[in-house]
């Protein structure tokens, strides 16, 4: 009550005093989030990146963000608001912000924009993405070693190239170890829905899979796997807390490194547009500790990780067949980035029909 009274008094006291604008010297770096910054997955990973950026360059910059911005006209307004409020560099962190970013960027040629996971650029719009599939390839190899039945379950979000690419990388990794390995896919049609994701995990386990991996954001599948006593992989964040005896490893998004790199370039005046697609070697994604597996499997995973980092191993390298058995990549041939970014077919070993 006392606190309330004090607050009330302050309110009354300051009413009538015009809001004073604080002096602005530091460069403003801004972020726009599609979800809540504490969603435990995608948006949280970006916000951790923002915090790292602030820690690293806090004496030269300050950061601002808008969260829970719906894609569409609201995003356009939100981005324009950031551009007008003095942001020099704006990160738009969802695929659905692509057209809005391009439109607003055309209106503000002096502001720099960075759009995550899109494919449209402009002189002041760069894109950035992460080669998540490198991590999924490693996970596939681990799954093939750890699975007794030779079947893994994959909880997928939406049939966009990003997700299809991940499924394929997982299968290719697994079949590099066990050529008969198969996966079953359930499309949850959501990025974030604990109930649906848990149901998908249960359905997959009932169909006989003994490893679960996911391209959705909650820890629900990990918890179901823990209850049923099988192993699983985490997504976007280290989910070891949800399955201390269950998580084999997780793909952890670590955007901070990229945010620091690009902000430095912006401060130096050397920023220019680019389409960045970094991977394990650049530190934009990292593998959570390899846990709950025998030492030889761990050694294999570490070796694969090292090979991917050195560039010796590229997951999408032939010989590879498409799902129907028709040849896709010849011996030694590597898929180019354009093919990967528009991927709309499965490779051999996926027990599912791709929604078209």
């Amino acid at each position, binding site marked *: 009550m006392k606190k309330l009274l004090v607050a009330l008094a302050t*309110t009354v006291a300051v009413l009538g005093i015009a*809001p004073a604008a604080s002096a602005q010297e530091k460069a403003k770096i801004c972020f726009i989030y599609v979800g*809540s910054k504490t969603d435990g997955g995608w948006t949280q990973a970006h916000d951790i990146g923002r915090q790292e950026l602030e820690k690293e360059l806090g004496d030269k910059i300050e950061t601002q*963000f*808008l969260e829970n911005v719906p*894609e569409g*006209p609201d995003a356009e*307004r939100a981005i324009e608001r950031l551009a007008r409020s003095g942001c020099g560099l704006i990160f738009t962190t969802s695929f659905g912000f692509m057209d809005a970013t391009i439109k607003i960027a055309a209106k503000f040629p002096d502001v720099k924009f960075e759009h995550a996971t899109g494919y449209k650029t402009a002189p002041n719009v760069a894109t950035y993405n992460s080669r998540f599939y490198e991590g999924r390839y490693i996970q596939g190899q681990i799954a093939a070693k750890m699975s007794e039945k030779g079947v893994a379950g994959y909880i997928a979000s939406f*049939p*966009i190239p990003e997700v299809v690419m991940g499924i394929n990388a997982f299968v290719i990794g697994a079949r590099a170890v066990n050529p008969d390995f198969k996966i079953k896919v359930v499309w949850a049609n959501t990025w974030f829905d604990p109930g649906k994701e848990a149901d998908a995990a249960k359905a997959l386990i009932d169909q006989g899979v003994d490893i679960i991996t996911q391209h959705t954001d909650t820890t629900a599948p990990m918890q179901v796997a823990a209850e049923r006593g099988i192993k699983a992989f985490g997504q976007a964040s280290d989910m070891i807390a949800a399955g201390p005896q269950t998580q084999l490893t997780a793909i952890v998004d670590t955007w901070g490194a990229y945010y620091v790199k690009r902000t430095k370039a912006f401060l130096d005046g050397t920023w220019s547009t680019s389409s960045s697609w970094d991977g394990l070697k650049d530190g934009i994604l990292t593998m959570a500790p390899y846990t709950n597996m025998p030492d030889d499997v761990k050694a294999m995973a570490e070796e694969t990780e090292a090979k991917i980092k050195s560039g010796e191993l590229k997951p999408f390298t032939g010989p590879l067949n498409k799902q129907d058995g028709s040849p896709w990549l010849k011996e030694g041939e590597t898929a180019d980035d354009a093919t990967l970014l528009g991927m709309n077919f499965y490779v051999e070993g996926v027990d599912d029909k791709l929604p078209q």
Partner: protein
Amino acid sequence: MRIELEKRAKASALFSILSPFIALALTILFGGVMFALLGKNPVTALYSFFVEPLSEVWSLHELAIKAAPLILIGVGLSVCFRSNNWNIGAEGQFIMGAIAGSALPVLFYDWQSPLLLPLMMLLGMIGGALFAAIPAFLKAHMNTNEILTSLMLVYVAQLFLDWLVRGPWRNPQGMNFPETRTFGADAVLPEMLASGRMHWGFAFAIVAAVLVWFMMRYTLKGFEITVLGQSERAGRFAGFSSRKMIWFSMLFSGALAGLAGISEVSGAMQQLRPVISPGYGFTAIIVAFLGRLNPLGIAAAGLVLALTYLGGEAAQLSIGVSDKVTRVFQGLLLFFVLSCDALIHYRVRLVWDRFAAVKTEEAH
């Protein structure tokens, strides 16, 4: 001591004017306390909520863009609610209108003509009206509860749109991402002024509000709507058919929701995506009641609600409160506005001792 609400013999003219201001004062007071408790300067917070969005031209345009669908849908719903038909599915009719109207630019993307835009708008209205015809038919002929049927159909519309943009209507050049082709130039609802993004959807909303206001006030149809809404039996004696009214009100509100949908897609998005509305169809229900089911009041209410959305964003940036806090503040405003309206029909009395209350009861 206790507080009693006593029904007034007749609505208070004084309080129907005063109540929004009382509500605003209460919101500012309680909102200010909330911001102060969070350690934020309440003045800056309130400034960014109510003044900042109105202080710049571009922001006024954005206000109109945000308000347009709310007003257009809300005006249609007022006809439904006045006639005692509870259409809760405007969100679905919004989506189906958008789909029907987008069929031309998506399927015949090469066809450019000045006729295209009017046809799209017409198709949008037809699409929304046809989708509203389902609960109308079910209510008029099978006596089902339209609240349930119209609400459930929202999910049907959302999933249908989702299927379209991921499947048959997906942009072949769109890297397999779930969205349709971008509309050609002739399929885009133009901007009204050169100074910002506001498009003709806002004009539609204002025209609809004025026309419906005129209809309710000066035409027999308006009288029919009011009479049937207040007493179906009285309406029957006057020769009005409540079944026809179900059809009229549902189709009418469906058509306006559909027009809102195609205007939004054509004017502000220029393509279909898996999600095209952040819940306009549901928010418009609040807007309709906030405007006391009066079309002109709804136009004002739509602008006020849009202001709180824009203000919420401004506050996130200027004082760094989270998105949740801005929603709480919006909730405070809505709560006070709707509850202060009780003063119009009720008198607040403080009863000091219980014997006094008993005495009044005996006196009756």
